[in-house]
């Protein structure tokens, strides 16, 4: 008998389509924001966790595991100490070790970190789902002053194979700290990976040695210049590296290897399991994403509050309408349902529109985001987390819609058949 209330609720809502439409759009946008942030969080975390894979241990001078990961994998900050070349050789020669990548950091190029390494880096470094690095253009470094740059470096600075670049001592910024006497040639550009590799300039360990031949204690030695063409005459074996990435023949031996590194007597070393350390690191940087999520949750709540306010505000001018419906035999419970259905309908339609909007944006923006920020926006099916969020939005919408429903219920009980307007 009261089934006509539902189409009536729709007709009534259509009659107020302008204000309700605006409310619907604000809910849609807030839902898009919330789900977008959730997706971005998911993808950022994935990109973060996949910044290194297949590496069993990351080894550096003794410091905190998080700091070691920060400079060895993310090339952020600086190492407090280096590892002597002797120690590197001993670790590399350990029978349990399948491969090792020495990493030497400390220089930069226009804000991008410079990483000195060996060919092993291109052979063994893996990211994501065990993907190897791929050259998009050119070839690996062969000569001393060859450089292979990451995709983002190439894109931001507009470099092409054959371009000449000058490295800067330290993280840059100080004048006169440029290694401008020994320019490098870009020989290769890596394909984008969505990891810190994209932001890195790769050169050989020998090159790092060579550009610092005439340097002492972080500064160029006055009156002592070694031109680029003479560096070959010197012994370019590195004296130290910043960190080592190693892969084991048998992963089961990882804790034994870790203990061996920790008990190395010549110098204090630290070996961390990247997965564990990345988790720790995420706890630190993850605060930002939680704040972001909290803010977008607030935005959704604001959107729903707007909905409640709009419907409540409309109640007064609809008192007569409600009294008419009541005189026609509607129960107070029907009035309650009428207003609750209206709120729910707007909230659900808004949520649906928000989801559609998000997926539309996703498809449109995914290539842009990937190329600019290296975050792969996966257009996956709706994830469990998203389903939970959507369910939560629906639950809160229901609660919010009960407010105008209850308001109308009270009003219609008080007004009866003759609204006091």
């Amino acid at each position, binding site marked *: *008998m*009261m089934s*006509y209330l539902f189409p*009536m609720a729709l*007709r*009534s809502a*259509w*009659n107020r389509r302008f204000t309700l439409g605006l409310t619907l759009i604000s809910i849609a946008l807030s839902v898009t924001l919330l789900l977008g942030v959730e997706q971005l969080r998911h993808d950022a975390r994935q990109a973060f966790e996949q910044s290194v894979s297949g590496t069993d241990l990351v080894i550096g001078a003794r410091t905190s595991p998080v700091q070691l990961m920060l400079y060895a994998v993310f090339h952020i900050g600086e190492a407090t100490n280096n590892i002597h070349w002797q120690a590197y050789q001993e670790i590399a020669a350990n029978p349990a070790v399948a491969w090792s990548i020495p990493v030497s950091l400390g220089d930069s190029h226009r804000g991008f970190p410079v990483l000195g390494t060996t060919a092993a880096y291109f052979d063994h470094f893996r990211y994501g789902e065990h993907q190897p690095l791929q050259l998009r253009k050119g070839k690996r470094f062969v000569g001393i002053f060859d450089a292979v740059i990451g995709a983002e470096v190439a894109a931001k600075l507009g470099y092409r194979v054959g371009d000449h670049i000058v490295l800067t001592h330290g993280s840059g910024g100080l004048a006169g700290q440029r290694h401008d006497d020994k320019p490098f040639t870009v020989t290769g550009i890596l394909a984008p990976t969505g990891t810190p590799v994209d932001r890195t300039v790769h050169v050989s360990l020998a090159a790092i040695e060579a550009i610092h031949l005439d340097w002492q204690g972080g500064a160029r030695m006055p009156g002592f210049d070694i031109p680029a063409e003479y560096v070959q005459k010197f012994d370019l074996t590195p004296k130290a590296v910043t960190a080592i990435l190693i892969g084991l023949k048998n992963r089961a031996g990882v804790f034994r290897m870790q203990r061996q590194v920790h008990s190395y007597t010549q110098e204090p070393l630290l070996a961390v399991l990247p997965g564990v350390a990345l988790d720790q690191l995420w706890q630190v940087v993850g605060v930002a994403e939680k704040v972001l999520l909290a803010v977008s949750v607030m935005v959704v709540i604001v959107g729903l509050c707007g909905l409640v306010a709009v419907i409540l505000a409309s109640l007064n001018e609809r008192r*007569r*309408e409600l*009294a*008419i*419906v*009541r*005189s*026609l*035999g*509607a*129960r*107070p*419970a029907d009035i309650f349902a009428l207003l609750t259905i209206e709120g729910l309908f707007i909230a659900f339609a808004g949520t649906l529109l928000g989801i559609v909007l998000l997926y539309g944006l996703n498809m449109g923006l995914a290539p842009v985001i990937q190329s600019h920020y290296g975050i792969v926006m996966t257009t996956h099916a709706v994830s469990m987390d998203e389903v939970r969020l959507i369910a939560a939005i629906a639950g809160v919408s229901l609660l919010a819609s009960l407010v105008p429903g209850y308001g109308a219920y009270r009003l219609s009980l008080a007004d*009866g*058949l*003759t609204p006091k307007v």
Partner: protein
Amino acid sequence: MMTAAIQIEHLQFRYPGAVRDCLHIPQLYIKAGERVFLHGPSGSGKSTLLGLLGGVLVPDSGEITLLGHKLSQMRATARDRLRADCVGFIFQQFNLIPYLSVMDNVLLPCRFSRQRNMRAQDAGQDAVRLLEHLDIAPDLHAQQASRLSIGQQQRVAAARALIGRPGIIIADEPTSALDADRQLAFLELLSKECKAAETTLLFVSHNHRLAVDFDRMIELPGLNRAERGGVV
């Protein structure tokens, strides 16, 4: 023997928190098919009586019987259903749902009450017939109710109250928003239709001038034994 359309016995009603009764009606008896003018100046407890007859308010004591149904023995939901099935209301003004068409407005009671839908047989046809009798041109049927003049709106409201022969029609100052010369014309139309459908009409107004062509006139102030000055 004819049953009473409206029967009130020892009715007492007081608003919560009020110190005095608002209504105290020892007895009121309106036969089925009777057309009664109830004169009530403002403040005489008119709205309260309408609420009680509509089953929206519940008396503190006494009994209201509508077409043989004792309201005091019914739950709120059943009273709401009885109102839908058996009572057609016409109010002062703004009787129509503004965003529905004239036709949809007239058909509303048939959507809310299966009984009235069945009694109307072909509800659509019945609506057309009633609208015609009440001087609403067919080209207005599809119009949005809010586009109509107030006089037209009141006549549509009368058609809505009449559709599906509810048994009782309660009109609360339905002419007060109309021009003086239109008031009697409206009253005449309404009266004629009620007569034709053998529907009981309780016409409530403060305007004595309208009390023509009724079977009976009742003074609410005389009927109501509650002391004046109470909360109304």
